[in-house]
C-alpha cells in the first residue's frame, strides 16, 4: 500500500525495492552493453566497448557475471512477492485492468489535444504497467535463453542444435526489444519527460511529493484519502 509520510511525501518504493531496482538496473546495463557489443561486433563503437571489457574473453565473463546478478535480482523480486506486504500490494496494483485501456486512451488524447478530462490513473499508469510486464517477461525470456547458450556442450546434450540456434536468435532479438523499452522509453520517461529532468529521484529516495503524486496518480490519491478518513 502506498502511504503518506509526515512530511507530505508519499512512499513509492521500499528500501528492498530500491535495492532490487538498483541491482536490476546495473545488471541490465552491463548485460546490454556486453551483449549488444557482441551482436554489433562489426561496428566501431562495439569494438571500443569490447576493448574496454578486456577483449572477447572479458566481455563474456562480464556478461555471465551480470547475468548471475540479474538472476539474483529476480530471486529478490520473487522473495519480495512471497514475504513483503509492499511487494504484494504493488503486485496487485500493477495487474492490468479493463480501465487501463479507457484511461490510457483518455490520457493520450488529453496529452495530445488538451481536450477532455485528464486520466484518472491509479498507483501505476498503463505505461508503467506495460514497462513492468515487459521487463518481467523479457527477463524470464533472457534468462531462459541465456542459460541454454551458457554452455554449448551441456545444452547440445539436452536439446537439438535447432533449439540452440533458436535461443540465439531469441536472446539477441529480445535484448534489442529490452533496449528499446528500457533504455529509450523508460529512461526517457524518468529522466526527460514531464518535468523529470534531470531525473525522478524516487528510485533513490523512495518518495514522491504529495502534490505531484495527487496529479499523476489521482485514483490512488483518492483511495489513500478515503482510507485515512475511515
Amino acid at each position: 500500500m502506498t502511504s503518506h509520510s509526515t512530511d507530505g511525501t508519499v512512499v513509492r518504493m521500499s528500501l528492498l525495492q530500491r535495492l532490487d531496482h538498483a541491482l536490476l538496473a546495473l545488471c541490465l546495463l552491463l548485460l546490454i552493453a556486453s551483449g549488444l557489443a557482441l551482436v554489433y561486433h562489426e561496428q566501431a563503437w562495439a569494438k571500443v566497448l569490447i576493448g574496454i571489457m578486456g577483449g572477447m574473453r572479458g566481455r563474456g565473463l562480464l556478461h555471465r557475471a551480470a547475468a548471475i546478478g540479474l538472476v539474483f535480482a529476480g530471486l529478490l523480486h520473487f522473495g519480495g512477492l512471497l514475504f513483503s506486504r509492499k511487494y504484494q500490494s504493488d503486485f496487485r496494483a500493477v495487474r492490468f485492468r479493463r480501465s487501463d485501456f479507457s484511461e490510457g486512451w483518455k490520457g493520450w488524447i488529453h496529452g495530445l489535444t488538451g481536450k477532455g478530462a485528464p486520466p484518472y490513473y491509479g498507483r501505476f499508469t498503463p505505461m508503467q504497467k506495460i514497462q513492468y510486464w515487459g521487463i518481467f517477461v523479457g527477463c524470464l525470456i533472457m534468462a531462459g535463453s541465456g542459460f541454454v547458450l551458457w554452455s554449448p556442450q551441456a545444452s547440445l546434450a539436452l536439446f537439438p542444435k535447432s533449439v540452440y540456434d533458436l535461443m540465439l536468435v531469441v536472446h539477441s532479438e529480445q535484448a534489442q526489444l529490452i533496449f528499446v523499452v528500457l533504455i529509450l522509453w523508460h529512461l526517457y520517461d524518468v529522466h526527460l519527460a514531464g518535468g523529470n529532468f534531470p531525473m525522478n529521484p524516487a528510485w533513490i529516495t523512495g518518495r514522491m511529493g504529495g502534490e505531484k503524486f495527487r496529479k499523476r496518480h489521482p485514483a490512488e490519491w483518492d483511495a489513500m484519502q478515503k482510507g485515512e478518513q475511515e
Partner: protein
Amino acid sequence: MKSRSRRPDIGLILAASLAAMLVGAGASAAGPGDSDCMACHAEVKPRVVLDVLRGSAHEGLSCTSCHADITAVPHGKPLAVDCGLCHAKEADAWRAGPHAKAGGPGCVDCHGAHDVPKSSDRRSMSSHERQIEACGGCHARLAGGRQWVKMFDESVHGQGVIKQGLNLAPACATCHGAHDVRSLKADDDAKAKREVARLCGSCHEPAYAAFEKSAHYKALSQNVGRAPGCTDCHGEHSIQAPENRSSSVAPESVPATCGRCHADKSLMANFGLPADRLSTYLKSYHGVVLEMGDLRAANCASCHGAHDILPSSDPASRTNPSNLEKTCGKCHPGAGRAFSNIRFHESVSPTGARGAWFVRVFYTIFISLLVAGFLLHIITRLVGWRRTRRKSAAPLGKGMEGGGSHDKS
C-alpha cells in the same frame, strides 16, 4: 654456352705474342701448358691468378681444358668457353630454360670464370646461402621483381636461409632448379599444380601425403584446374609459417583464404557446392570470436583439417557425423553424441533455420512497432508540453503536469 671474356688490348697481345715466341720452346706438341699461358696472362688481360684457379672446383684442370680451341701460343681471339664439354646435362638444361632464351645470365655470371668455387662453398654465388643474393641481384631489376625478392627474403623460407643459415630451407634453385630455372607458374593448370605439390612434398612429406588423399587433390587429379594446389593457400615467395600473423594460413586469415573460393558463387556453382560457408561461419560465434582476435576460436581448418580436407559425406572426413564427437571434442571436452546430429553452416533464412528466421521476423516487426510507439509517445508529450507553456496563466510546472497525462513516478 657463352663465356664473357674481355677484348684484350692489341698492343699487349703483340707484346705477349713476342714473349710467347721467345718461350715457344716450352710449348709441348699437345698444346700450351699453364706456364705458357701464364707467361703472358700474368700481365696481359685477361689477367689470371693461377692460385685462384688452383683453389677452385676446377683444380687440376689446365687452362686448355676449358680454352680447348687454343692449341698454340701466341693465339688469336679465342672462342667462347663451352662448359657443356664437361657439364653437358647442366648446359642442356640451361639452353632449354628461360635464361638462355631471354639472353639472361650464363655460366660465369653465377659460377664465376676462373674462380669457380664448388656450389657447396659459401664463396660461390651459386651456393645455397648466396644464390638468393645472386638471383635477387638481377631479378630485383625486373618488373615487379623487387617485390618478389623482398617477399622471399621475408618469407619463412628466406629467413631460414638468410638468418639461420639452414640448408634445409629452400633457396631459389631448390624450387626453380639451378640450370633450367622453371617458372612454376600454375594458374589454373591442374598438372602444374600437382607438380608444385610434389615439389613442396619433397620437403613437406606428411603434408603432401595428407594432401594426396584430399578432395582438393582428387579434383586436381581429374584435371580441375581451379582446385587449389599448395600455393593457392600458402602463397609462393611470401610463404609464412601458420604461427606468423601475416601468413595466409594463420588462424585469423584462414576464413578469408578458404573464402576466396568457397564464397565465390560462380565458382562454387560449377562444383555444385554452397557458396554461403564463409558468410554463415562469420555470423557464427566461432567466426565472431575469431574476428575479435581470440585465436582459440575454431577456424575452417580446426574442423575440416588443412591438407586432408574431405567432403563431410566421406566417412574419413573430420566433419562426417560419425567423427564430429571427436572433432568438436578437441575444443569442447564434454562434446557428446549430440554433436553428431548438428547441422552446421545453417543460415537463418526461410530455406535454412526456418524457426529462427520466423522468430527474427516477428521481433523485427514488434521492435519496429515499439520504436514507432515510442516516437509517438515523445511527440505526444512534446505537443502537450508546448501547449501548456503557451498558457501563460498556468503556473510554472503545472502545464507539464496537465500536458503529461503519461507522467511517471
